[in-house]
């Protein structure tokens, strides 16, 4: 090819404008699109973090707005607000119920609750604005400080309201109106509900001194103490008279044993649905009555609510559900008590009232308390005017502020708005309204990751229980059981998958003929693309019942399969060398495959046999702990370990010697000797296992209760097996790639030096590919951590924390799938589930990155080799 010699005038060629424009457009489009796509990926992380982040935010109390108007300096019985925090009410001991506009401080309404000018002698008030007032003559007034809500449309709204922007509010009628939409106003007006007066059976000479009431499912339960110290409990049942449609109240009275003490108790507290009554003295002594059987009321126990002898009870409050009693003392201590069920309890109902959370140890006296109506938030006020917000389950003080300008005045009464968005604090001469943002106290790091002592539990525990049927339910968002479940799923699936995948990869790359490698690898890769919902369905509806029915045989298979393979190999060694070499391809693989059905048959027959001999003929019964001893369990669990130990010891201490010594033996003699050695080692392993098992058993240890325990149909064993379908192909493919990329020269050099293929594989190829194999396991781990459908379907999804192979668990991923559709947007639960997702994201991302880095280093190294 000669270049043209004649110099021709060169045509001036310029790139046409359209081509240049296309070039520019393409460059921009691809860059923008490419960067945008990658940014979208980053967005996932950013978004997850942004949803989770508010969990860490603190509770905030805004600067108080002080309301004019003097509340006369005395302590109200109880104070409260309406749902929107616009109107406050205060019930005073003189029998007056005042409603006050919280914006202007103006009094809106005053309800006279005296009986002909006689103020109540005793009172009780509880959450939701409900109160019970007892008069000296024994009459009881049950009522509720409530609000009537009405809506106005455009036609009815007066001019003054039309000027409001949406969200603003103004006085209207006896209450306050708020514009909630373009054409809609909501009016809140005080409306006090009063039930018909009930006459309590009290003598005229023995007036009521203390009263306590609570609502039950059917009506009310009331307890009262007369001045002479007689204690009675009454059940008020309301029913509608079918003739007059009037509410009729029926009262039945039961006498309780008189409280023992020098003076009559100063307070009564009904807890729960009124199944327990506390009679408290100022100094903290309290008697607890068991009210479950009203015709036989008994004193269950005596407790000291205030250990400090000089301290007096200055505030008592019940948390939502009335299960937890909060006791504030003049020594500044603030303690939460609830009943727990200790294993050995002398009380009749088997429970004991215990101090569980010490919110504050000491300080200025606690003067007022207010509990939330929707969560376990508690607000406390002190003698020196400090206001604190506590979250009880985590024992945390979330915020504190001094609402009054005159710092020395006490907080005399407190109200927490029903929506937890405002706190009303009554001081000596003013009322402060504070805007509250509770944040997510039940989603704090302490709530999520440390064991908490929840109501009705006998000690601090990690619990995940996000929802329940009742309103006063305490959400328990301990993530630890879910993390544990994830680890358990990962561990068991890797225990099953990793050995199979790695060994299969070694065989494929080192012993399988190249012609077979591709189809076999493709077949196993096909396994990875099986939808996990299919695997989950098969696991739950086919494998789980199968394993349950054939448990002994399935467990026997774990022993029979390796045994059959090894036995097959020892027999194979008897083949003459030439035949063995000629048959080392497909025929050998077929022989191996033939071991599988053989092992299955063997497991089928030996399983029930072993069950009969070792486990009393009832494996699940043995697991329950109802039959048999721990010895056989230890024996079978230790058998693989001790056999491995025996084989390793034999190889380590006699292997080299034997190889050198046997170099002159005939093949047949070698094979025979090897078979004998195998049998001897097997027996030795069994003897070793029996020895260890006997030692452990003699030491009083039982395997039941740890890794094996009560059998549940959908369990970790089944999940481990089925997860194998997703884990094995991934690890296998990557491991095989790593092994295959070990340079052929190394292999050839080793073989050339006289090493056998097995020695080459184990001492040259596997160590060289070690980091590649590690990264393969890592990627498999990443896959197992996030697997959702299989664990969702094949585990019972119970968030329990035990290592039992035969029990289920609940993983982070399955938990998200189950609960996220039901979680209210932006609730703590919702954010916690996002945190679970973020955790999964982080774990897999880190694990995969680690694997990727290791793999790249491995690749670089194998190029250098």
């Amino acid at each position: 090819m000669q270049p043209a010699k004649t110099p021709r005038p060169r045509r001036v060629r310029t790139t046409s404008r359209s081509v240049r424009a296309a070039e520019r457009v393409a460059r921009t489009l691809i860059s923008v699109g490419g960067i945008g796509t990658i940014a979208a990926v980053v967005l996932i992380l950013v978004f997850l973090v942004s949803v989770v982040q508010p969990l860490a935010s603190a509770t905030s109390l805004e600067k108080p707005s002080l309301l004019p108007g003097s509340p006369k300096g005395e302590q109200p019985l109880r104070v409260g607000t309406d749902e929107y925090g616009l109107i406050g009410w205060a019930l005073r001991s003189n029998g007056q119920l005042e409603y006050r506009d919280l914006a202007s401080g103006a009094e809106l309404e005053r309800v006279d609750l005296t009986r002909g000018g006689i103020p109540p002698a005793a009172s009780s008030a509880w959450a939701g604005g409900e109160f019970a007032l007892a008069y000296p003559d024994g009459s009881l007034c049950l009522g509720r400080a409530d609000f009537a809500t009405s809506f106005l449309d455009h036609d009815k709204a007066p001019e003054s309201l039309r000027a409001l922007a949406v969200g603003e509010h103004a006085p209207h009628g006896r209450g306050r109106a708020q514009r909630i939409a373009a054409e809609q106003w909501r009016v809140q007006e005080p409306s006090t509900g009063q039930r018909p007066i009930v006459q309590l059976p009290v003598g005229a000479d023995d007036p009521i001194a203390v009263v306590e009431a609570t609502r039950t499912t059917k009506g009310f339960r009331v307890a009262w103490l007369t001045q002479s110290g007689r204690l009675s409990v009454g059940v008020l049942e309301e029913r509608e008279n079918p003739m007059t449609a009037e509410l009729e109240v029926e009262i039945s009275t039961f006498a309780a044993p008189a409280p023992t003490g020098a003076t009559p108790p100063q307070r009564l507290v009904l807890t729960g649905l009124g199944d327990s009554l506390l009679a408290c003295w100022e100094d903290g002594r309290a008697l607890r009555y068991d009210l479950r059987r009203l015709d036989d009321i008994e004193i269950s126990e005596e407790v000291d609510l205030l250990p400090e002898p000089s301290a007096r009870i200055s505030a008592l409050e019940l948390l939502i559900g009335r299960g937890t009693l909060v006791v504030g003392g003049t020594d500044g201590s603030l303690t939460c008590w609830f009943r727990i069920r200790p294993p050995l309890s002398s009380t009749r109902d088997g429970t004991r009232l215990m101090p569980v959370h010490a919110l504050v140890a000491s300080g200025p006296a606690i003067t007022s308390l207010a509990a939330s109506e929707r969560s376990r938030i508690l607000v406390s006020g002190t003698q020196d005017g400090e206001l604190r917000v506590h979250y009880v389950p985590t024992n945390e003080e979330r915020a504190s502020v001094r609402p009054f300008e005159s710092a020395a005045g006490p907080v005399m009464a407190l109200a927490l708005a029903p929506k937890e968005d405002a706190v009303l604090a009554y001081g000596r001469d003013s009322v402060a309204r504070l805007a509250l943002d509770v944040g997510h106290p039940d989603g704090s790091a302490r709530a999520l990751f440390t064991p908490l002592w929840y109501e009705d539990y006998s000690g601090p525990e990690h619990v995940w229980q996000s929802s329940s049927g009742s309103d006063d339910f305490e959400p328990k968002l301990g993530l630890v059981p879910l993390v544990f479940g994830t680890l358990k799923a990962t561990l068991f699936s890797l225990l099953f998958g990793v050995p199979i995948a790695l060994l299969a990869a070694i065989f494929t790359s080192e012993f399988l003929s190249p012609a077979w490698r591709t189809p076999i690898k493709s077949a196993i890769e096909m396994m990875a693309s099986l939808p996990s919902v299919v695997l989950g369905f098969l696991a739950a509806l086919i494998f789980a019942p199968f394993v349950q029915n054939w448990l002994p045989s399935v467990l026997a298979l774990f022993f029979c399969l390796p045994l059959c393979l090894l036995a097959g190999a020892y027999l194979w060694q008897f083949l003459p060398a030439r035949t063995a070499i000629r048959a080392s391809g497909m025929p050998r693989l077929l022989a191996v495959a033939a071991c599988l059905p053989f092992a299955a048959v063997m497991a089928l027959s030996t399983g029930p046999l072993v069950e009969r001999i070792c486990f009393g003929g009832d494996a699940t019964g043995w697991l329950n702990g109802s039959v048999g001893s721990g010895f056989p369990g230890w024996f079978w669990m230790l058998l693989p370990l001790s056999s491995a130990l025996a084989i390793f010891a034999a190889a380590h201490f006699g292997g080299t010697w034997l190889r050198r010594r046997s170099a002159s033996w005939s093949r047949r003699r070698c094979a025979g000797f090897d078979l004998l050695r195998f049998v001897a080692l097997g027996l030795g392993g069994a003897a070793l296992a029996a020895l260890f098992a006997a030692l452990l058993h003699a030491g009083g240890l039982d395997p039941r209760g740890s890794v094996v325990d009560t059998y549940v149909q959908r369990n970790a064993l089944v999940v481990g097996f089925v997860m194998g379908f997703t884990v094995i192909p991934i690890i296998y493919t990557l491991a095989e790639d790593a092994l295959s990329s070990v340079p052929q020269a190394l292999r050839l050099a080793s073989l050339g030096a006289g090493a056998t293929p097995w020695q080459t594989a184990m001492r040259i190829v596997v160590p060289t590919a070690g980091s590649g194999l590690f990264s393969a396991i890592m990627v498999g781990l990443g896959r197992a951590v996030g697997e959702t459908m299989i664990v969702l379907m094949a585990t019972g999804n119970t968030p329990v924390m035990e290592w039992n192979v035969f029990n289920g668990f609940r993983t982070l991923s399955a938990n998200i799938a189950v609960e996220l559709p039901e979680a209210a947007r932006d609730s703590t639960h919702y954010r916690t589930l996002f945190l679970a997702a973020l955790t999964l994201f982080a774990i897999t991302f880190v694990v995969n990155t680690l694997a990727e880095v290791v793999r790249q280093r491995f690749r670089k190294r194998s190029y250098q080799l």
Partner: protein
Amino acid sequence: MSTATAPSPQAPRSGADASPPRSGAGVRRSGARRATSLFAHGEPLVWLTAGSLVLALAMIAGLLALVVAQGAASFWPQPVVRVELDGGRVLMGEVTASEDYRPEPSVLDALSPEARVRAREALDTSAGSARRRMLRIGNYELTNEHFAWFSDFQQVPGSESLPEWALVIERRTWGRFYGLPKAWRVDGKVETTDPAEIHERLERERELAEERHERILVLERDEIGELNALQERARLAVRKAELEHGARSPQRAAAEAELALVIASSEARFGELQQQIRELRDVNRSRELVLVTADGIEQALEIGNIVRAYPANRIGSVEALGVYLSRWGEFLADEPRESNSEGGVLPAIFGTVVMTLLMSIAVVPFGVLAALYLREYARSGPVISIVRIAVNNLAGVPSIVFGVFGLGFFCYIVGAGIDDLLFAERLPNPTFGKGGLLWSSLTLALLTLPVVIVATEEALAAVPGSMREGSYACGATKWQTIQRIVLPRAMPGIMTGMILAIARGAGEVAPLMLVGAVKLAPELPIDGNFPFLHPERSFMHLGFHIYDLGFQSQNSEAAKPMVYTTTLLLIGLIVALNLAAIFVRARLRRRFLAGAI
């Protein structure tokens, strides 16, 4: 390198001893000179590795075989067995399961004395185990159960029979019915009592009834559905006018007048349609098949409720094949009934396909753009390799995390935003602010994005540099090179990536549970109402269908055939997609080999 010296010293030494002649004959004759002991071959351990491989292969083969066998067989009609049990109960139905078990003593105590003796004898000869079978006995409205177990020792000896005319009747409601034909009634008058004639009449009438049923469906869904859609649209127009112009605006008044007009005009048509439907129903109701159950109870079934009826013990294999194929036909082309446990999965197939298509439309262009940017435009450096690792690792992030993102971002933020802007009149009912087809597709697109990016990048990298250089040398610009040289060459690789992405997307269920797959979607995402494609609607999905049937179904035993067939369908789809990918990859390789020469 250090690893080269790693083998322990004795291996080379024994090899060195052995290096002299190694003919096969020599090996056999003079074992004494062989140096490599049999022990060095580690044969048992090799067998363990081989065993692992075989086990892995057996797992996949066994699983596929199980699914294929169960899925393919479950529609085949089974004979109807009638047995009389000790105690007088008579069962008739199809045998669906059979197993050996050890009966509790209490089971025997419940038997009559002579049956107890027989049962004891039978148990003694079989070492305490007995066979029990599960019959699908149907007739739910009479028996309150779909299935019944019975043990061999419970039946009256010799009572098991295959009644010749026993009919298996699949119904639209109440599940299957098993009975012997007694009479054919039209308008309450018995027309015939001969079983053969009843069957013949049934066959003939059933087709007519089927047509009437179809007609009712068309009237209900299309015509009445259209009227409802019209009314709904007018109602929304009123709401929209109110929101935009105020409650007393003339626009709202106009919209209200329009609504009144629509309602008035549709009410008349509505009554007309209802009348038509009633007439068709009456005809379907007037023809009745009277059957006698195994316990001798007579039951009349109206023809409109019967989907399929066949005398299971009379039909030969050709008719059985007909029933089998007709069941497959129904499965593939019909809608589910009986809370998904019977009927077809057409909406699920449809949902899966439409969702997967939308997903590929979203993922392929962006994946290819990202890959082009990474491979051709971005300056390679540490940043790009970090990005590449990150994209790679995204493929390993659990799918449920994408679902969480989809729900939180697409549904609750983007969707709610769209609702506020465009569909304010429908609030508080969300339109886009909930799970739906569009959000599912986008979520899965994100999920499969790494697959496409990685595959495309590999394909781009595999285009030889010489070709690019050749193109540049001819004066082509970068884009021209990419467009005319690189992309065509890389196309098979991109296709492979796309198919793999589709295969992954089609089988993924966990994220869909959060972003839009439902148990039963009342409306398909594509229908005859404007704008025809409704990306905001929730949809049915094959994978979710399996989950739902296997786990949420009240009658999970009856749903099993459906689960298996659905599983078979889904696996078939995914295996086909994977095979396509493998095929495309193989072709790509061949082309490269040809191109490289």
